[in-house]
């Protein structure tokens, strides 16, 4: 069953005054980020989006999260058109986005506050999540007192606190060092395998994509479309050891094959559009 269906999704951004972009020879002050982005995401699957920079992966997440409206086309969540942030989705950002004036515990409580959950229940839920991430001793710490890895754990816990059906993760581990990144990938997959949450995960790392995903959707260079969907046939539950297996390498190769041409195309594209940086 599909929980999210994206149909002919288009998104254009107006460039700042004086900026122009060359779309196949046509000069324009609009940039097309998504053009006919079709994707069906199954309930409970771990779907990873990979694609060159600027291919609109994050824009797609924002639309699914109800934080940005498409120019045309539509995304359904449980057969309903997404028009505003839904209580069914949780969002994890690359920059952690923890509120620095709140403690770890109180950050996790945030989403529950908006839903009117009573304080005792909020604290209990937040404590349970901190325990799952091994952060029980840090509940009173402010973000500045936590390492990057710990901050992102708190941010994931915060997104999970409202028990979302769909978890959106926008390059959540990109700012972390390589070791912490692997540790968090292992933790995420361990925690996720015990739930029926659907995850849409954006990354630039093919290794990360292969390790985490049920399916990897390869997005084309701008304007973004889903070019290919690759089933990752690695057994679950997965642990860190799977990274060194031959099957892993084979899957990695498949994803890279699909991605390579798009990355090259995107590099050409950037040469044509020096003024646009995001």
């Amino acid at each position, binding site marked *: 069953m599909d929980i999210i269906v994206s149909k002919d999704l288009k998104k254009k951004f107006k460039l700042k005054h004086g900026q122009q972009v060359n779309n196949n020879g046509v000069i324009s002050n609009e940039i097309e980020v998504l053009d006919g982005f079709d994707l069906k995401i199954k309930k409970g699957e771990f779907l990873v989006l990979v694609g060159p920079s600027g291919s609109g992966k994050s824009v797609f997440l924002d639309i699914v999260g109800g934080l940005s409206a498409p120019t045309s086309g539509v995304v359904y969540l449980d057969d309903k058109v997404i028009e505003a942030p839904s*209580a069914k989705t949780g969002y994890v950002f690359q920059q952690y986005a923890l509120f620095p004036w709140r403690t770890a515990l109180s950050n996790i409580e945030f989403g529950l506050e908006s839903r009117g959950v009573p304080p005792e229940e909020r604290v209990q839920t937040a404590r349970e999540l901190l325990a799952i991430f091994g952060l029980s001793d840090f509940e009173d710490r402010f973000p500045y007192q*936590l390492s990057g890895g710990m901050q992102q754990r708190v941010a994931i816990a915060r997104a999970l606190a409202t028990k979302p059906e769909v978890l959106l993760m926008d390059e959540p581990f990109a700012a972390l060092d390589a070791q912490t990144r692997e540790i968090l990938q292992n933790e995420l997959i361990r925690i996720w395998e015990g739930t029926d949450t659907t995850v849409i995960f954006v990354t630039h790392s093919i290794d990360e994509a292969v390790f985490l995903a049920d399916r990897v959707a390869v997005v084309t260079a701008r304007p973004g479309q889903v070019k290919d969907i690759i089933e990752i046939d690695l057994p679950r539950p997965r642990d860190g050891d799977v990274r060194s297996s031959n099957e892993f390498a084979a899957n990695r190769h498949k994803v890279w094959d699909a991605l390579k041409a798009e990355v090259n195309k995107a590099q050409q594209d950037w040469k044509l559009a020096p003024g646009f940086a995001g």
Partner: protein
Amino acid sequence: MSEELVAASQAGLKTPTVDSGSYIKRFEHLFEGLNKWSQGIPLVLAFFAVWEALPRLGLIDPLFLPAFSTTIKTLFDLTVSGKLLLHVLVSLQRSLIGFGLAVLIAVPLGFLMGWYSRFERYTDLLMQSLRNTSTFALLPIFLLLLGLGEASKIAIIFYGASWQLLMNTITGVKSVDPIYIKAAKSMGVSDRDLFRKIILPASIPSIVVGARMGAKIALMVVIAAEMIGAKTGLGFFIQNAQFNFMIPEMYAGILTLAILGLTINYLLVWFEKKATYWKGEFGSGVIG
């Protein structure tokens, strides 16, 4: 769990935790601060020594610059007799009322201007014109319109203290990291809570800095206002002493003003630190 966690928790021990409850650590922290502070003492002492020496050696007429010791003695006498205290309290009261009004009006106005860009477009030109006109130049207008009483003094203090508060509140609101707003919205926050739980706390650091500068301006303006048409206050006291050629008293008044300014600055720095405890390392120091 993982090595990274252990390492992080050890690193965490070194950071000054708010709720550590360890008084020894707090004491050490205080001592370290005092130690740094005390390194500035020799130069201050040297300054006083020069002050003492210049009139004594006859390089400056003691009539115009009484020795430091004479000034201190006068200050002591004035303090013991309670003559000075009244003036100090009056000045403090005036600046506090003016500053308080500034907080009550400039901060909400700043939120409106920072958040609603249309409102800002309507108001900005007037605000900028007023802000860039010297407060002191407007003193005569305040006196003309509000008379020589308390109202004109408090009004001019309010006026002088408001701008920095206003500007810093606007900056605070505008520079809220959009990722906080995005994160809050993704968690279904209401508009009211977005302001209360995100915009407000996120702009506090900038507002507090504005308050610190505003308070210092309030203290400066009160003295100037009291020098023009007042019967009480530290500004009046200094001016009056000069007019009556009570030179040691004049210097004692100025010295009091310096001590007052220094104390208030330390208090404000302390307050700033308290209000932004969640930011951790406090960079701006005590100079401000």
